[in-house]
């Protein structure tokens, strides 16, 4: 059984400009949405308190809101979480109360004013400085991962491919951030982890294609650059699609069975892998081609390198 079986390489590079325009438009759209709508940062980044409580019966949200208002938390956001018996209460950071005790006082208020005792499922409090640091550290981590990959690919392959690979990765990350911004999905620490995992996954795909491009350059002596790239992408297409398929399979399982806490994580990866598959075919290779990669760049270096030849005179 085989998904694709092509007699001739498909002409992927014919559409390279269309792909570049599409990707640029999507990236621009993502930036616009991030600028206008912003990102719905989760508790990990904004700071504040989240309390998840379980009720024995389906919860009466109006009553819960009333209880919280009476206890002095008018700004609390109350919503169902996962099931009708689980309630999630979010309380933003406020200047006039000691933050660390909010969880305890809310639980007390709920237990004293509701007919039935609630069960505490989780309480999370994050101070404002912690969230700010996390944003910085998270951004730094993404940058470091990208730079590390840039260096590794440049070393193992060639700088044009390296630029293409990192552009493809940045493309995937920006589009995923854009999705979270457009849909206003909550961006928490697990989503950040998912995006970093996505960087790892997407580079996998790209490198498989690059490896083939290098090989095809050596094998197809007479072909043009575009033909070579087309050949490489076509012959790895089966693998690209199958691996994406198995990964998407487990992610769908994770999305539906992993519980509400894993939802954001699964969403980010599902979307990211779809985009990542496209970008490793189109963005990475197209950029390398546009930057003018040639056969000579990919052939093994000449055995003798005259030292000092390439450096400028002092």
């Amino acid at each position, binding site marked *: 059984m085989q998904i694709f079986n092509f007699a001739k390489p498909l002409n992927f590079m014919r559409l390279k400009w269309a792909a570049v325009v599409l990707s640029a438009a999507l990236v621009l759209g993502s930036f616009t949405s991030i600028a206008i709508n912003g990102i719905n940062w989760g508790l990990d980044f904004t700071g504040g308190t989240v309390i998840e409580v379980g009720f024995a019966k389906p919860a009466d949200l109006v009553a819960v809101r009333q209880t919280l208002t009476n206890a002095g938390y008018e700004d609390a956001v109350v919503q169902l979480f996962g099931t009708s018996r689980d309630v999630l209460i979010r309380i933003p950071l406020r200047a006039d109360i000691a933050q660390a005790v909010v969880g305890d006082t809310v639980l007390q208020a709920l237990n004293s004013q509701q007919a039935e005792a609630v069960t505490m499922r989780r309480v999370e409090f994050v101070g404002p400085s912690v969230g700010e640091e996390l944003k910085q550290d998270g951004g730094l981590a993404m940058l470091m991962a990208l730079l590390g990959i840039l260096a590794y690919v440049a070393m193992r392959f060639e700088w044009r491919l390296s630029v293409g690979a990192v552009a493809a990765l940045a493309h995937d990350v920006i589009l995923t951030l854009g999705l979270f911004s457009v849909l206003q999905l909550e961006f928490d620490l697990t989503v950040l982890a998912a995006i*970093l995992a996505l960087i790892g996954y997407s580079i996998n795909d790209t490198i498989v294609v690059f490896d083939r491009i290098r090989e095809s350059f050596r094998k197809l002596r007479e072909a043009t650059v575009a033909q070579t790239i087309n050949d490489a992408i076509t012959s790895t297409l089966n693998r690209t699609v199958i691996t994406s398929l198995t990964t998407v399979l487990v992610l769908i399982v994770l999305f539906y069975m992993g519980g509400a806490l*894993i939802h954001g994580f699964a969403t980010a990866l599902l979307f990211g892998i779809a985009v990542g598959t496209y970008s490793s075919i189109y963005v990475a290779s197209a950029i390398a081609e546009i930057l003018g990669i040639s056969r000579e760049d990919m052939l093994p270096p000449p055995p003798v390198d005259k030292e000092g030849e390439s450096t400028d005179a002092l």
Partner: protein
Amino acid sequence: MLNKNPIWRYVLVIGMLLLALVYALPNLYPEDPALNISATRGGTVAEETRLQLEQSFRSANISAKSVVLAEGQILARFNSTEDQLQAREIANQQLGANFVTALNLAPATPGWLTAIGATPMNLGLDLRGGVHFLLAVDMKAALDKNLNDMVQTFRADLREDKLRYRNVQADIDSAQVQVSFRSTEDVVAAEAALKKRDRELVFTTSSDNLTLLVGISEIRLKEIREYALEQNITIIRNRVNEIGVAEPLVQRQGADRIVVQLPGVQDTAQAKEILGATASLEFRLVDTEGDLGSALEGRVPPNSELYYSRDGRPVLLEKRIMLTGDHITGASSGYDEYSQPQVNIKLDAKGGTLLSAGTKNAIGRRMASVFIEYKPGTEIGADGNPVLIKQQEVINDATIQARLGRDFVITGINSPAEAQNLATLLRAGALIAPVQIIEERTIGPSLGKENIELGITAIQWGMAAVLLFMAVYYKAFGMVANIALVANLVLLVGMMSLIPGATLTLPGMAGIVLTVGMAVDANVLIFERIREELLEGRSVQQAIHHGYDRAFATIADSNITTLLVALVLFGIGTGPVKGFAVTLAIGILTSIFTAVVGTRLLVNLIWGGRRVQSLPI
């Protein structure tokens, strides 16, 4: 011969898998609700304590699975949580305050597995329930205290060297001590004198050359911070041990943070009170010469400060601190001969010397004990956290009857309960720098259990989906990949159990699911390659050989970059995300091993080195 492997390779790989399987086994055994009993400071748990407990459990009709004494602790296992809770009540009643009882879930790993060091995976708090605190140490307070100490030392030193100064004061904002003089000669002389005493001071002079600005060197600043952090960690560890938690974790994080994890703790209010209370004690002489009346109107004598006692009575105390609470090594509550509550205090050697010197010429004068507590107030500071308010009150002042030494007594305490409270706080230690909670995550036990179930279901279904797909798509070769995938899971779990620092969290379980989906990638690469080689007309044996050979470079390259990302994740992540990074990294390594080395052995065993016309791929 192509595609043949020596026997030793099979033995090696099968051996490794068996080893991983053995170390993965403990995870299959359930956990027993258990009770951990240890003695508090100074006490010991003896065999007779164990026998007593066993006896009382039996008489209360609680069937304990086992009651064992090991490593100075008693571990009692029960069949149900109800039994466990009841047993705790009984143990608390019977043993009294000298023992700490902690609820625990003890892994029911059989003896032969524990004997070879096989233990189940560490579960993160999001899976086992409990509370996680991140505490920040207020370094500014530590520094301020140091500056104030410097002021006192400088005054004494300058007086001793007969150098006349106009004023010595701490400038908190610039973290310097300002010493002003009448002449520039004095400034030069004072600088020389102070420099001789302490080489870690940094001297500058003000623009008019009459004030010496004394700062603290970077090295000393670092020492102060380190000391404040280390002291806090030690003290918090002691306090946590007194709460009675099985397997607590108190760990440094970064330059000024402390992570505290208390598995199984649900009542966070109590835990917070104990962690957050930062009490310290200072002993100062009462200023009997100063005029209390004018001090109340705002004219406090320069060497004194105005304090209030618990009942609101004003007291003038000397600024000089005779002794601070960090020299206290022990404190216990008791009664004096008139049955009044009192606190007995023991000091360390240096504290004893200090107090002895301080009280030598002060017999007959009054000495006050000032109790200082830092509590988060309503005001929010520049860093966004509530500003800690220093609350100080004179809890007692008494006439010094004799020169005091390493043991002394504080009397005049209102109630026995208060005496006990004070003793506990003092015993738990005096912090030089207060801490505050900047992050808290509490996971209830029901959610933890649910998370485990969700994770396991997701792994099972994810696994099933991938196994089915591979079997359909690659037929017999797909089955080979499936065997490798199962072996990969066993290896991953075995490694996670074996590595002491690896912790399984909910995102970590998601990482396992993801690994299952991505681990087949290596096999997909190899199998696609073999198909291509076959299409190009190579022989079966050649195709297998080249397929594996050519795919390997690609597999290595693509996985090294993913490993790089996992390392970055490990670097920034906290708790659950670190767990994800660990599973991702281990998963990459094990999947390369099983998908490349493992499947090759199988493929060679089945199809290698013999005449095969076509491959079921």
